[in-house]
């Protein structure tokens, strides 16, 4: 059992607070979705987790050991991100070789299959890759290096629809063959909604949601019916958004419905992660605090 722990991480750039007291625990063999709007602090958090940048305060620990200046712990993570840390003049084959030697392993069989499927030419120099193949190359490294935690920051950036499809399938295959922890940061929520097992939502540098997807979805309720009845029914519930069409109103509730009586005129169903995300990170700032209280 290997646990990656983010403990009281805060970070500011100048006077701008990017992360405020982030606490998270990543467990074995789960696929986490790290969601947030642009500028929510996702990339900064991942970059601090892998010790690329320093936090102002707080610690990153793997199995209770601080990862900074700790090769054996840092070597358990690989962060694939938009930032290019490979020099433009290096050949892909050389980068693979050096990465293999530094991480102490590489799944060549998988790599060869992926290289073929994606049609990547590994005899090129890194700087010559198009945006799409740049992502693909880094994804191949992420899937083939022997790490416990695969951190993917916007993994499908620049990939066309076919390659995206292929990537998600290969991610699942790789996860099934060799279970380990994935942390996928993305703004394409629909594409990963069913793949992730746990969802973390960052908003303005704070964690506003951190739960298994299944539990989260069980707490989403769309309440549809005549305006008057819906208002009556959702009184006191955590309404995070609504739609109105003529006299028909839909209230979107996040949280448990108590055993209040459901009128005949009202239809209840769940709604999806994408909708929940939009409501939580949009105008309804108050709901974030509500969720915090529920979490404890």
């Amino acid at each position: 059992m290997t646990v990656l722990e983010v403990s009281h991480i805060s970070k500011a750039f100048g006077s701008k607070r990017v992360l405020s007291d982030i606490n998270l625990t990543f467990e074995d063999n789960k696929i986490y979705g790290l969601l947030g709007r642009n500028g929510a602090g996702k990339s900064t958090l991942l970059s601090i987790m892998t010790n690329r940048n320093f936090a102002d305060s707080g610690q990153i620990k793997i199995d209770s050991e601080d990862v900074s200046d700790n090769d054996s712990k840092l070597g358990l993570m690989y962060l694939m991100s938009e930032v290019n840390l490979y020099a433009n003049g290096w050949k892909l084959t050389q980068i693979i070789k050096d990465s293999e030697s530094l991480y102490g392993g590489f799944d060549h069989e998988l790599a060869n299959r992926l290289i073929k499927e994606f049609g990547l030419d590994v005899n090129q120099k890194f700087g010559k890759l198009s945006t799409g193949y740049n992502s693909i190359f880094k994804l191949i490294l992420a899937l083939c290096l022997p790490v416990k935690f695969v951190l993917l920051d916007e993994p499908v950036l620049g990939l066309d629809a076919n390659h995206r499809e292929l990537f998600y399938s290969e991610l699942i295959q790789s996860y099934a063959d060799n279970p380990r922890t994935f942390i996928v940061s993305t703004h394409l929520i629909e594409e990963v909604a069913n793949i992730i097992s746990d969802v973390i939502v960052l908003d303005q540098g704070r964690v506003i949601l951190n739960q298994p997807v299944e539990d989260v979805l069980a707490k989403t309720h769309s309440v549809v019916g005549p305006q008057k009845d819906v208002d009556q029914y959702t009184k006191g519930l955590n309404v995070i958004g609504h739609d109105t069409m003529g006299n028909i109103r839909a209230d979107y509730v996040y949280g448990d419905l108590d055993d209040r009586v459901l009128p005949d005129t009202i239809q209840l169903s769940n709604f999806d992660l994408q909708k929940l995300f939009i409501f939580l990170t949009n105008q309804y700032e108050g709901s974030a605090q509500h969720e915090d209280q529920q979490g404890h």
Partner: protein
Amino acid sequence: MKTNKVTKFLFRKQIIGLAEMYVFLFVAFLVLPFIFSLISGSLSDYSLAEQMRGTWVTAAFGVYMFAISTLSYENFKFLIQNGISRQTFFNSQIVVNGLLILIGNTFNVAYQYLVLMPLVHARNTNIFMSSYAGYFHNSIVAFLFNFIFSGLLLVVGALAGMVIGNFLTLFSKFIQRIILIVTPIVGYITLMYAASRVILHHDFEMTWVANFAKFVLGYRSTGSYDPFPMIVAMVVVSAIMLLIVRYLFSKKQLKRE
């Protein structure tokens, strides 16, 4: 810790760079002049000995050490991507620099004794030979101290390069440029100011500086200088710079570009 792996990685990259530099210099200083002489029909003026006499051969290595030391950000990026800590990077880079200096210094000293002295009949092939060698009466001892002395000079040069280079990499490219422009200007003004104080105001407070310099250089009014104060000074300066470099390495992080 993965010091061995990282050392191998850095050594391979940097020894290849060194070899490339020597090839380049060989072409630039020996082959090209030869071709030019050939083309211009003045081949009789071309002298291999004259070309090899130049100090470039021994100076080149010092420049290379300085240069690679200022270019550590690229390696840092690759290593942090591959889960290598700053401490390991520092340890490995120091080992690699030590190895390179050993190799380069051996090459330089061999070049002095095997090429410059017998072929070109040069005596004062470096600072040590011109100022300190006469201090020793035994030529083998002189040879040993020449090796140590030139090695230490390279160590100081490499570490100075590391201090400057790693200091600069803490900043964004924009700030780096500002520092590179402002520092010489400030330095020049300071120097002018100091000089004007000494010359115009006859402030002889500067004499202690001169005396200290004389002491460190091992200056003696007659005969060869004493090499030991200089050796000790280089060791002390190196140790201080090593600590500074270690601190600078520990502060490395990814820049937002």
